[in-house]
């Protein structure tokens, strides 16, 4: 599905990603873990096409296309979805209107007709149940005045609506209490299929109790320093990041 080869990226003068290699196939769940500042969020931003970062080396293939050549909106239309760590508030723009625009833009990209309003509303009703999102939130402005938990649930709701091929969940567990975490995780699990893939970016092992990954990668100072199965996350939890830091200390 996505193949990342020797990806280097920097912001200004500072290199943050220093050669990432990652291969994700349909049906898989990958977790990327790492201490603060290891480049986790940079990776998700670069994949989604945020302009603040310069890709200096490497390539990314997504469904056979060169991802790095695509505009952010075309990446989204190709099926790449980023659940933001800090979802943005857009005053005055209702969630519904926002989603309908997005959905129809994606459909148009694939040469499909606009979704009839009736079907769309049915879909909204159906998918909002998935994350136990109050239907009132759907008619409110995008993320405006939402609590932290509501914002994250809204991200998963949008993911359900847009049905992406690859979902990147950037610290979706941060700031969630245990109930919200359970709701978000169950939503993600229900959306999982043999045709799509998920990348979980997280600091803590906690989320992985609910969404069980097939692979765990440890990111440190812009490189994947260790990969393994789900047991790697448990090991990391037990030892802490300090162990990793010692083991893989690289000069800046």
């Amino acid at each position, binding site marked *: 599905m996505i193949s990342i080869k020797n990806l280097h990226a920097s912001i200004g003068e500072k290199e943050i990603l220093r050669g990432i290699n990652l291969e994700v196939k349909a049906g898989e769940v990958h977790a990327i873990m790492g201490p603060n500042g290891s480049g986790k969020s940079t990776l998700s931003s670069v994949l989604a*096409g945020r302009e603040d970062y310069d890709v200096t080396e490497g390539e990314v293939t997504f469904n056979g296309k060169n991802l790095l050549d695509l*505009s*952010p909106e075309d*990446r*989204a*239309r190709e099926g790449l979805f980023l659940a933001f760590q800090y979802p943005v508030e857009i005053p005055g*723009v209702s969630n519904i209107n926002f*989603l309908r625009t*997005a959905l129809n833009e994606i459909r148009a990209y694939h040469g499909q007709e606009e979704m009839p309003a009736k079907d769309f509303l049915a879909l909204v009703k159906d998918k909002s149940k998935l994350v136990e999102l109050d239907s009132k939130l759907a008619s409110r402005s995008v993320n405006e005045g939402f609590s932290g938990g509501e914002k994250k649930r809204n991200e998963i709701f949008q993911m359900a609506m847009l049905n992406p091929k690859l979902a990147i969940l950037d610290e979706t567990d941060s700031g969630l209490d245990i109930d919200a975490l359970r709701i978000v995780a169950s939503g993600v699990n229900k959306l999982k299929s043999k045709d799509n893939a998920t990348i979980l970016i997280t600091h803590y092992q906690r989320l992985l109790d609910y969404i069980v990954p097939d692979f765990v990668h440890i990111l440190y100072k812009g490189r994947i320093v260790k990969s393994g199965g789900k047991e790697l996350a448990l090991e990391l939890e037990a030892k802490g990041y300090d162990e990793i830091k010692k083991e893989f200390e690289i000069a800046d």
Partner: protein
Amino acid sequence: MANEILEEHIQNEYKWGFTTDIAADEAPKGLNEDIIRFISAKKNEPEWMLEFRLKAFRNWLNMVEPQWAHVHYQKPNFQDIIYYSAPKPKKELASLDEVDPELLKTFEKLGISIDEQKRLTGVQSNIAVDIVFDSVSVKTTFKETLAEKGIIFCSFSEAVQEHPELVKKYMGMAVPPTDNFYAALNSAVFTDGSFCYIPKGVRSPMELSTYFRINASGTGQFERTLIIADEDSYVSYLEGCTAPQRDENQLHAAVVEIITHKNAEVKYSTVQNWYPGDKEGKGGIFNFVTKRGICLEDNSKISWTQVETGSAVTWKYPSVILKGNNSVGEFYSVAVTNNYQQADTGTKMIHIGKNTRSTIISKGISAGFSNNSYRGLVQIKKGASNARNFSQCDSLLMGDKCGAHTFPYIEIKDKSAVVEHEATTSKIGEDQLFYCKQRGIDNEKAIGLIVNGYCKEVLNKLPMEFAVEAQKLLAISLEGSVG
């Protein structure tokens, strides 16, 4: 990329820029007492009307054009304007079939139907329309339906003939002929406009609407609207305007007056889309308009909502004089300027009665090389106890070649007043744009979405049909403004 968008914008710009090939009956260029007598005679006006005009004209001669607005333009040559232009033939229209087919085509292009049947049976809601073409009202629809309720909705000229007592009593009450330079000019030379009277206890069963169009070249448009809402009545009034694309600047100096009696309410909505000039700033309408309402008696309410996307230069301050106790004034405005457009617009809320309330929400959007100013006055007179005002003026800048300005004047002479004013200036957030793009929405659409969201408080105040038109207009006006 930016160039492509710009190209597309140029292709797209000003859809309403066609002219209509209709022979017009015109006055010679220039302005003097003879021209005014000519206009008055053409319209077969009574002596008192001519006197009103001449008095205004003599006043105007001693007045100077206002200089304080934050706009710069070549002053119009008032002797180079045709003050009267009527589509020929000018005979009384008995039915729709008699309207010049060219004219009907024009209105079709504008998307306005003057075919009542179609409106009655069609899906669109009922709106009665008075259409002012250049200077003359050509057709008022739904007159009979309204007459059953006692509502008078007709052209201003007709009102002068048929309802002189009402015109005499109310004309100039909100906007005296000496009020300002352009109001005086209008009072002297106005050629037509709309007149509306809602009798006691009547809620208008449909929205009333005036559609203005300037067509002939070298003309100015000077129409006058007078709306009177008698006790316990209600009406929602819509105004739309377009003009053909021309290299010259054309002058539009209108006057709108609203008078509300006890417990009456008038909601006046405008979507102003006069030709703004081309992308070099050539041509376009000078829109110098005086709009004012008086809440004459207790518990009455006047609400102005405007979406301003057109005109080369706009100078316009729809205002409310809150004379009756507990009366309410509202002003909701979206003003968009692009290319070389200039807008200086806002409102005046004059609190005289007790417990009067006013709300001002103004959203300015500047793009291209344009300048967009909010100018407003909130005045709490002595004795206007417990008066309240809340003002919110936000500006959005798109690009670094444009300007956004806020000039509020607040004068308070009563200690029980509470007046709050807030203003912010910002640009569209990069993070908001990125969020939209990540969901598959492209730049132009994302800007449209965010801008419409930013203006929502105002757009929500428009009647449904107008809101849709306004949203589209916003998107078109801003196309290509952010590359």
